[in-house]
């Protein structure tokens, strides 16, 4: 494995041009914290961006921050935290789930992966917060997308494509992100002992209420059995937890928590958890701690299923029953993390049959090399969409130089 560590955008352009000229596909890496996600790539050359790590400009009053692609996410988070701001989409830290070094991960890696946390139901995902980018395409050209202001419709919104493209369209060298004020307080209501379908109903009721719920998660008792951390501390043996979060100024968060508690009476008597203790619970949900690579399910493949939220409970219950696996729910049921017992295809076929029935899609986020080579890691699309997707890929990277084969099996050659 050959690694080229670039120091600036010009070197990225040079390297991509050289790669094109030599017909040498390259793998694009920040800290490498998510290298095990996706189809195994057809390349042995690595372009590493971690040295592009400067904060170019941070303007709290304009609600924007511009950083180089390889800036460490953890550092950027603490920088904006010092001004009481955050990335509202609550990017997940994949370290626990993937078993990589804690704290690793770059800003562009987070954008490329597009893995938003619990607050996605209210604030949107990475795609909603990427305002602008400089990037090098597979033509070996540096181009600019978007702008450096919070509101902009000039030209096509190429940023949307870059977010969640797993480095297959262009190498981002600098990104501008929207930052927003961090809520003053948070409150979490905890309901205990609900089944998956009932919990899904409770979350649907909460999200349809005027109380502005910013997190709605459900963790079945069996999934919690082997967890450590904040979630484990409040869990009772074999009893599920349903968590509902309210955020904002203190008076408002408390008031809404009380109102929601009353509104959900028929689902049980909710307990209230405040501020830091509440935040710890949501970190656990965000980072999928129950399925941590350090835990007993280390060898189980983990799927990320996105589906219409009100259909999540029934789907998850069926999946865990049929496969003997475990699931946890976020986004009010719209996001299901499923850890299933080891199987040659990671249960891809059976799982996707179920998921497609309710118009959802599933990606394998953790899986052995063998499983990832054997199946479609990202949800296969209908022919017309898949063809359009490849035309889009070619419009950025005609010789398939960047992260070749990572997002679709067909494109490995």
């Amino acid at each position: 494995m050959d690694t080229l560590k670039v120091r600036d955008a010009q070197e990225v352009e040079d390297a991509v041009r050289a790669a094109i000229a030599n017909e040498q596909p390259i793998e694009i890496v920040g800290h490498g914290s998510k290298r095990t996600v996706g189809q195994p790539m057809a390349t042995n050359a690595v372009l590493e961006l971690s040295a592009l790590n400067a904060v170019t400009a941070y303007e709290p009053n304009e609600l924007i921050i511009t950083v180089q692609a390889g800036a460490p996410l953890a550092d950027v988070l603490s920088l904006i935290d010092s001004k009481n701001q955050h990335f509202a989409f609550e990017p997940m830290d994949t370290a626990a789930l993937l078993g990589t070094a804690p704290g690793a991960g770059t800003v562009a890696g987070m954008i490329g992966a597009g893995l938003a946390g619990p607050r996605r139901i209210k604030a949107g995902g990475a795609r909603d917060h990427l305002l602008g980018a400089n990037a090098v395409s597979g033509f070996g050209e540096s181009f600019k997308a978007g702008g450096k202001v919070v509101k902009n419709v000039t030209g096509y919104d190429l940023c949307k494509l870059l977010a969640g493209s797993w480095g297959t369209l262009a190498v981002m060298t600098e990104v501008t992100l929207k930052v927003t004020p961090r809520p003053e307080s948070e409150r979490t209501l905890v309901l205990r002992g609900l089944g998956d379908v009932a919990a899904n109903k409770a979350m649907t009721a909460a999200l349809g209420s005027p109380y502005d719920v910013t997190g709605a998660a459900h963790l079945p008792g069996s999934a919690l059995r082997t967890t450590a951390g904040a979630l484990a501390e409040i869990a009772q043996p074999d009893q599920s937890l349903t968590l509902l979060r309210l955020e904002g100024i203190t008076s408002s968060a408390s008031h809404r928590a009380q109102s929601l508690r009353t509104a959900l009476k028929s689902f049980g008597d909710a307990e209230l958890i405040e501020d830091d203790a509440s935040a710890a619970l949501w970190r656990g949900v965000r980072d999928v701690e129950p399925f941590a690579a350090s835990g007993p399910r280390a060898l189980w493949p983990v799927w990320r299923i996105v589906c219409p939220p009100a259909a999540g409970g029934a789907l998850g219950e069926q999946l865990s029953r049929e496969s003997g696996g475990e699931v946890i729910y976020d986004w009010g049921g719209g996001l299901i993390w499923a850890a299933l017992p080891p199987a040659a295809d990671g249960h891809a076929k059976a799982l996707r049959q179920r998921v497609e029935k309710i118009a959802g899609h599933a990606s394998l986020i953790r899986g052995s090399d063998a499983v990832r080579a054997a199946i479609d890691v990202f949800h296969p699309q209908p022919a017309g969409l898949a063809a359009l997707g490849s035309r889009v890929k070619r419009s950025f990277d005609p010789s398939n130089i960047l992260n070749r084969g990572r997002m679709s099996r067909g494109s490995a050659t």
Partner: protein
Amino acid sequence: MTILMPEPDQSVLARRDEIIAALRKIVPGEGVISSDAEMKPYESDGLMAYRQPPMVVVLPSTTKQVSEVLRYCHQNGIKVVPRGSGTSLSGGALPLADGVLLGLGKFKRIREIDFDNRAVVVEPGVTNLAISQAVDHAGFYYAPDPSSQIACSIGGNIAENSGGVHCLKYGMTTNNVLGCEIVLMTGEILKIGGKAAECAGYDLMGVITGSEGLLGVITEVTVRILRKPETARALMIGFTSVEAAGQCVADVISAGIIPGGMEMMDKPAIHAAEAFVHAGYPLDVEALLIIELDGPQVEVDELIGRVEAIALGCGSTTCQISTSEQQRLLFWSGRKAAFPAVGRISPDYLCMDGTIPRAQLPLVLRRMNEMSEKYGLRVANVFHAGDGNLHPLILYDANKPGEQDAAEAFGADILKLCVEVGGVLTGEHGVGIEKRDLMPEMFSDIDLNQQQRLKCAFDSEGLLNPGKVFPTLHRCAELGRMHVHKGQLPFPDIPRF
């Protein structure tokens, strides 16, 4: 007309009768309009200084018809311009002399309301406001609220990625749509996304939103709906300088408050609006802020107090706080009617739409005043102050020789200034034809080529809405060519892998 459109294809025009006959076979009856008189209403959109009768107007009512019309046009090399309600302020729906104008006005059905998944599935011709009205009884609404919401269509909103006064807090169209059905120029029908929060694969929904009718024709949309906030109250705050008002906006945001709406008007806009709707605006101030807080009563009451204190600290001279829904709406009435109000004091006006970093506001206003003197034209300003989106309204009289050209040159100077201070050409109205030739101010050839390559992935012949957004048209083959050659490494020192 100072903006050149693509040269009409004479061979297409020569076949007009044959083409109309073929289109009538696909869309029977009154769905094909070809007489000059009946085509008149379609000659222009909200950018009324530009007019062009299309070759023919087609008003399909099913996705199948849209698909067949597009396939026929694709096979016959005929250009197509999609149109929703025709309220675009950038000329996005301006017809082409040799093109089909494809109106989506008959797609008026709300197909499904799904409260459990907080989603509504609608046809593209449904108006923005009609969506909110359809879910109002259950306490829900669709958040993006362009001032044109009684007329503009959701299909047009997607195409323009429209905003509104509430988008600082609730996002633009792109942040509130989940999926769509789109017909490509070849006639191929694709379903993208749905009721799930994210679509699989590349975020095609994200790039279709804001693509100004150049990538495909939208025939169905799934939007996200929200519960209405429990209550909303507004403050109307006057300042003796625009700088002080600008400082107040910055201080509100740095206090961690994102209001539901935060709008600013300058003196000419205040006077025009007050004369029109009598909202009780103070006439002796240089700038007026309308700040709306929404949410639960306790929160709104507390934040109103905080914002009032911030305003005082910035030297506000008047501050009224709404105590009833009626009063809140009264505060807004002047702002919401600002465009027509300015229309009353001037025979014509041009509405600009740049965005700037908010800190640059005093500088930009000063330079705009200088330009106003240079061009001898008045300007009134309304802003979405929270997100730095300016709407300077340039007043002119098209009947006076040279004034329209001067107004357009003035407008172009304003937009160049926006880019110069770190902003962008358009915050919500789109590029269309209006800002097309200014695109190089913001983007290099390489940037624009990359955008046009994407266009090629959707429409390889460039038949859908050509002449909009991009100042220069290129053939896809030319754009797709790779300029790096094997053996000629531009940078031989780079280590070989």
